[in-house]
């Protein structure tokens, strides 16, 4: 499930990046598509459009490498508002979970984690707009992540896009899932509305994507009914 990470961490970028609405969508899942990615692991910021929408987790988990352990930091408010991570539902086998008292501790733990080269990635969930999370703090994380080569994901729940040193800033929202081929009434493959609203060296864009076994697919945005209805029920 998680082989998609190479797309983010590694290589070919952005030639194929086009808004979904302009694509002719073939049958099946849609167009095969590489996620825009920076050349090396760095700090990416992920905004959940709503803290009660867990869609970002699916989008993020689809990109993680699972060969090395993962450090997952949550601050207390994030746990209260949108739940604690549940290992049986995660693809990553090795995991260390940190329950930080506040954003300050969470950022400290993330920075310690980012310096540890034995990790595959550090994920930190922060609630709201904490004062300690300023440009300096995010910039420190970004520099540390680039130096050690450990990807760092800063997840913002219920926060606003203030000044940040993150190299990529995403806004993720769940979209209605694809049709379940076995049961029409059941949810199918999860889909997301992903908006890259700021990135260094990459044009911003907005896509509807699903994640298949190894890469992301563009699908019709769920608001584009004309395109969508036809496509969604082919699958």
């Amino acid at each position, binding site marked *: 499930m998680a082989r998609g990470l190479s797309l983010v961490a590694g290589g070919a970028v952005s030639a194929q990046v086009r808004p979904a609405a302009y694509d002719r969508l073939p049958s099946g899942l849609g167009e095969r598509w590489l996620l825009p990615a920076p050349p090396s692991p760095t700090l990416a910021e992920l905004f959940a459009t709503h803290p009660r929408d867990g*869609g970002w987790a699916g989008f993020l988990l689809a990109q993680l490498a699972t060969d090395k352990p993962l450090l997952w930091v949550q601050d207390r408010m994030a746990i209260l508002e949108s739940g604690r991570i549940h290992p049986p539902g995660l693809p990553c086998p090795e995991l260390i979970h940190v329950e930080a008292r506040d954003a300050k501790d969470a950022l400290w733990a993330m920075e310690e984690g980012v310096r540890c080269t034995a990790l595959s990635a550090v994920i930190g969930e922060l609630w709201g707009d904490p004062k300690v999370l300023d440009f300096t703090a995010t910039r420190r994380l970004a520099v540390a992540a680039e130096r050690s080569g450990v990807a760092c994901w800063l997840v913002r729940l219920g926060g606003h896009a203030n000044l940040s040193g993150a190299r990529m800033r995403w806004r993720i929202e769940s979209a209605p899932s694809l049709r379940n081929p076995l049961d029409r009434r059941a949810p199918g493959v999860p889909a997301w509305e992903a908006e890259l609203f700021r990135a260094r060296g990459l044009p911003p864009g907005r896509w509807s994507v699903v994640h298949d076994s190894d890469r992301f697919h563009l699908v019709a945005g769920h608001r584009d009914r004309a395109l969508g209805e036809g496509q969604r029920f082919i699958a």
Partner: protein
Amino acid sequence: MPAIAIERWAKANDSSPDAPIVLTVEGTHGPIIHAVTRAAAARGARAGARLTDARALDPAFIALSADPDGDAALVQRFAHWAGRWSPLVEVDGDGLRLDVSGVAHLFGGEAGLIRDMVQCFVAAGITARVAIAPTAGAAWALSHFGGDELTPLPVHALRLDPDTVRTLERLGLKTIGALLDLPRLALARRFRGGEDVVDALDRMIGRKPEPLTAAPTDPPPRALLKLEEPATHPEAAVQALERLMPGLVHQLQERQLGARRLSLAGYRVDGSVAVASVATAIPSREPKHLQRLLADKAAELNPEFGFDAFALTADWAESLASAQDSLVEEPSGTREMARLVDRLTVKLGPRAVRRPREEESHLPERASGWVAAIGSSLQAYPSTQPAAREELSRPPRLLDRPEAIAVIYATPEGLPRRFVWRRAVHDITRAEGPERIAPEWWRQPSTSRLRDYYRVEDADGWRYWIYREGLAGDGRGGAPNWFIHGLFG
């Protein structure tokens, strides 16, 4: 410490030394004097006498109740403190016994050691009588009765019970010398039962060993630093740590050990000890890492009136073979991870840094147990086959406590149509289920109800895991309640 009770009382109450004060404990026939001030002693009061008898001599005595438990605690504290001279300290009534074999040369010989001890106790404001002797019994006798030789000491110094002492005195054997002059055989025959006089004599003159109890056979690696002057500045502990670490690491290396728990003890001039300790996830003897772990905690040690000695101890060490992974410094994954866990745990506490552990349970909240990362080895979460897991489809996020939701459904047993969670309405467009999870009857009360889990998706595409607790008419409560338990990605 012959006057510990009265001195502790005087320190606590800031009294004048001239007041004729006696501390009493309750005896079978009224209060018994436990300790007296010097002024009271001059007027004829002595410990062990009845208060009424003493009052008959001089009615001016002021009687206050003693606190033997508090005194014992103070002695215990001093025993801890005396660890600065010797690692082997035992509390003996109101005194301390230290095994100083092989220690004295560190303090400039036995005379130097005694001088150091006396100075320290004077600084702490406690009268102490110190004696060094080849046997514990002799040291006790000399410290309690004074002098340089054993032979002129009274037979009390043998620590026999009062009846035996009385018998000996009646026989005219008043000193230890007199006892030693008697033939052993006769002495042994005369005092056969109960307290053995020959035994006591043998212990005193070293014919029979009298080991200190609880002698640790394998003392933990430990490095000591004694300061010329008490240090009161807050960085003292950190600086001492820097000086001590190489010594400790050297010891660990020689014994092929790695520290699992380290503690830095600062001995204060007033006879108290401040300790900072940290634990590590895997045994380590890397000076830089250990120092970094302990430095923050050491900086928090409060010097109060000043530290005059420090000891760095590896309280818990595990064997660690010397190993060189490669010529170039190449960080190994496990070690890096363990270091990360150490650092996180030291700062955030073991309850905040955890690792998942699979439990044998179908209840979702029990299936993912958490254990402190520092106590457990890093291992893969025992993953079921990915395919099997996808079939189970557990959410990546679970609420700590399932939250009650209001649900509208077509039929009581059917799929839910709409629910209200945290005051927001979610129209369910798709639902899958139920997945029925029965209560664990072997550990839950018999009234607990089964759960029917549904994966639902609302009109915006937000996906949740909700469940209905119980069935209508299952006889375990009223209408079934609905809860939200997890969020899907």
